[in-house]
C-alpha cells in the first residue's frame, strides 16, 4: 500500500467515517449565527454568508411541512455516507472472496479432515435437541440474511448486467423483504444461542495450546491439539462472531428496519456503515465455520444434524471433553439408545 494511497484515499475516508459516527445527530440554530446574519443585513444587504453556513451544516430550521427532518434544507452527512460505503463494501467483498478462494485451495491441498481410527459405533449425545434447534434456526437465518444482503450490496454490479433490470429488481425486492422479515428470527434466537452455548465456551484448559498450534493443523502427527467440548477456534467464533458481531448487527439493523420510529438520517447512515462492516466480517468468519462443519471435517455435520457423534470422532477432535465424558464428569453421555438410522448416518459421515 503506497503512502499516497494512504494520504489521498484512506485518511479522508477514515476522517469522514469518524465524522459520520461522532457528529451530533442534529443541529439546532443556537441563534448566534442568526444574529450575525441580522447584523450582516445592516452593513451588507444581500450578503447571506452566515445563513448559508448554517444551511451547509444541516442546521434545523423551520418549515410548515410535517415529517422527519423536513426542516433541514440540506444534510451534509449523506455525501459522507455515499463516499464511505462503496470502498468499505468492496473491501468486504474482496475479504469474503479471499476466504472462499483460500478454503477452496485448502480443500484441494488437504481434503476433508478425517479420523485416524475407524469409528467404534459407540455414540455420544453431543448436542441436546434445544441446542440443535437453536443452532439450525440461527444458521439458516444467517445464511438467508447473508445471501440476501450480498444480493443487495453487490447485485447491481454482478447480477444486474447478466439477468437484466426487470428480473434483478424482482430478485432484489425479494432479497430485501426476506432480509427484513428473517432478521427478527435472528434477533430473537441470538440471545437464546448465547445463553445455551456460553457455558462450554468459557476459557478452559488447553485453549492457549490449541491457539498457539493452530489446533494442530500443521503438526507432523496430523493429530488435533486436545480441547474441551469446544476448541479455541470455536470459542473465538462464539465470542467474536456470535456475541460481539451478532449483537452489533442486531442493533444496527434494527435502527434501519424501523424508520417509523422517526430517527434521523444520520443515525441510519452510521448504522448502515456499521452493519456493512459487521456483516462482511461475519460472513468472512462464518465461511470458515461452515467449511469445517460441512465438507471440511468428517463427522462434524452429522454431529449437529443428529446430535450424536462417534466415540472416535470425540477422541480425535475434542480429547479433553471425551475424557470427561468417559469419566462421567461431562453433561453429555454415551448414548446406547440411539436409533439405528442415526447410527448409520453417523457411521456414514465418518467414512472417507
Amino acid at each position, binding site marked *: 500500500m503506497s503512502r499516497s494511497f494512504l494520504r489521498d484515499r484512506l485518511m479522508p475516508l477514515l476522517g469522514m467515517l469518524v465524522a459520520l459516527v461522532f457528529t451530533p445527530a442534529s443541529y439546532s*440554530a443556537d*441563534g448566534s*449565527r*442568526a*444574529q450575525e*446574519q*441580522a447584523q*450582516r*443585513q445592516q452593513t451588507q*444587504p*444581500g450578503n*447571506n454568508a452566515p*445563513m448559508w453556513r*448554517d*444551511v451547509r451544516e444541516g442546521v434545523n*430550521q*423551520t*418549515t*410548515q*411541512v410535517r*415529517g422527519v*427532518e*423536513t*426542516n*433541514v*434544507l*440540506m*444534510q*451534509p452527512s*449523506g*455525501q459522507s*455516507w*455515499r463516499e464511505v*460505503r462503496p470502498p468499505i463494501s468492496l473491501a468486504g467483498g474482496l475479504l469474503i472472496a479471499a476466504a472462499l478462494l483460500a478454503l477452496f485451495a485448502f480443500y484441494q491441498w488437504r481434503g476433508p479432515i478425517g479420523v485416524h481410527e475407524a469409528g467404534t459405533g459407540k455414540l455420544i449425545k453431543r448436542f441436546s435437541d434445544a441446542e440443535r434447534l437453536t443452532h439450525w434456526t440461527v444458521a439458516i437465518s444467517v445464511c438467508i440474511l447473508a445471501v440476501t444482503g450480498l444480493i*443487495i*450490496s453487490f*447485485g*447491481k454490479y454482478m447480477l*444486474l448486467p447478466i439477468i437484466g*433490470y*426487470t428480473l*434483478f*429488481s424482482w430478485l*432484489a*425486492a425479494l432479497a*430485501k423483504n426476506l432480509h*427484513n*422479515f428473517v432478521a*427478527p428470527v435472528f434477533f430473537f434466537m441470538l440471545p437464546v444461542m448465547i445463553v445455551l452455548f456460553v457455558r462450554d465456551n468459557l476459557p478452559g484448559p488447553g485453549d492457549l495450546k490449541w491457539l498457539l498450534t493452530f489446533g494442530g493443523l500443521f503438526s507432523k502427527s496430523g493429530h488435533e491439539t486436545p480441547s474441551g467440548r469446544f476448541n479455541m477456534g470455536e470459542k473465538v467464533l462464539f465470542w467474536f462472531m456470535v456475541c460481539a458481531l451478532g449483537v452489533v448487527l442486531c442493533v444496527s439493523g434494527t435502527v*434501519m*428496519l*424501523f*424508520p*417509523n420510529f422517526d430517527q434521523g*438520517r444520520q443515525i*441510519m*447512515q452510521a448504522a*448502515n456503515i456499521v452493519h456493512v462492516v459487521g456483516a462482511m466480517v461475519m460472513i468472512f468468519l462464518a465461511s470458515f465455520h461452515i467449511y469445517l462443519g460441512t465438507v471440511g471435517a468428517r463427522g462434524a455435520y452429522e454431529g449437529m444434524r443428529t446430535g450424536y457423534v462417534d466415540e472416535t470422532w470425540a477422541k480425535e477432535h475434542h480429547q479433553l471433553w471425551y475424557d470427561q465424558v468417559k469419566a462421567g464428569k461431562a453433561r453429555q453421555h454415551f448414548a446406547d439408545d440411539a436409533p439405528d438410522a442415526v447410527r448409520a448416518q453417523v457411521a456414514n459421515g465418518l467414512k472417507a
Partner: protein
Amino acid sequence: MARMKFLCDAERCIECNGCVTACKQEHEIPWGVNRRRVVTLNDGVPGEKSISVACMHCSDAPCMAVCPVDCFYKTSEGIVLHDKDLCIGCGYCFYACPFGAPQFPQDGAFGLRGKMDKCTFCAGGPETDHSEAEYKKYGRNRLAEGKLPACAEMCSTKALLGGDADVISDIYRNRVMKRGKGSEVWGWGTAYGKPDAKPATPPGAKS
C-alpha cells in the same frame, strides 16, 4: 440541448407555500408525501429567508449512485427520473440525498416503505407520455405538454424559477444587477416609492 434546473431566489420567497400546494394538486400526491417544501431560515430573526426545495436534478446525483437496483435515469434535459417498477423501497436514496427529496408513501415498520416518490420536474416517468400509468405513478407530464413545472409557474413572487439553465440564470443575473442595496433589495422602492421621492405624508402631519 436545454439543461433543466430549479433556482429559488431567497430574496423573493415569501414562504406562501404556493409551490407546495401547486405540486400536490397537479400530481394528486397522497398525504405524507411532499415532493416540495419551503424551509425558512432564521425564522423570526431580522433578515430571515425562505427557500423552496425539491429534487434539484443533480448532475452527479447521489441517489443515482447509491441505488442498489439502478432504477434512476437522466433525461437528455438533465432531469433525474426513476422507474417505480424497479424501485424496491430500500431508502438508500433517502440516506444519500442532501435535499431530502426522496419520499416514501408508507410508515415503514420492517422497512416497508413502498415505492419511492420524488419531484419529476413535471416530466413524468418511463411510461408513455400522457398515459394513465404514467399519471398514476409519477403525476402530470407537463414538459411533454410544452409547459414548465407547476410550482415555478405558480410562484406568486417569481422567486422559484424552473426551466432551461441559461434562461433562468439570465433572469436571476438581471435581478441581482438591478436589485441595488439596502431597502431596495426588499422591493420597498416599488411598494413605498423611491427613497428620494416625496414622502406620502408631509412631515409634521399626524399619522
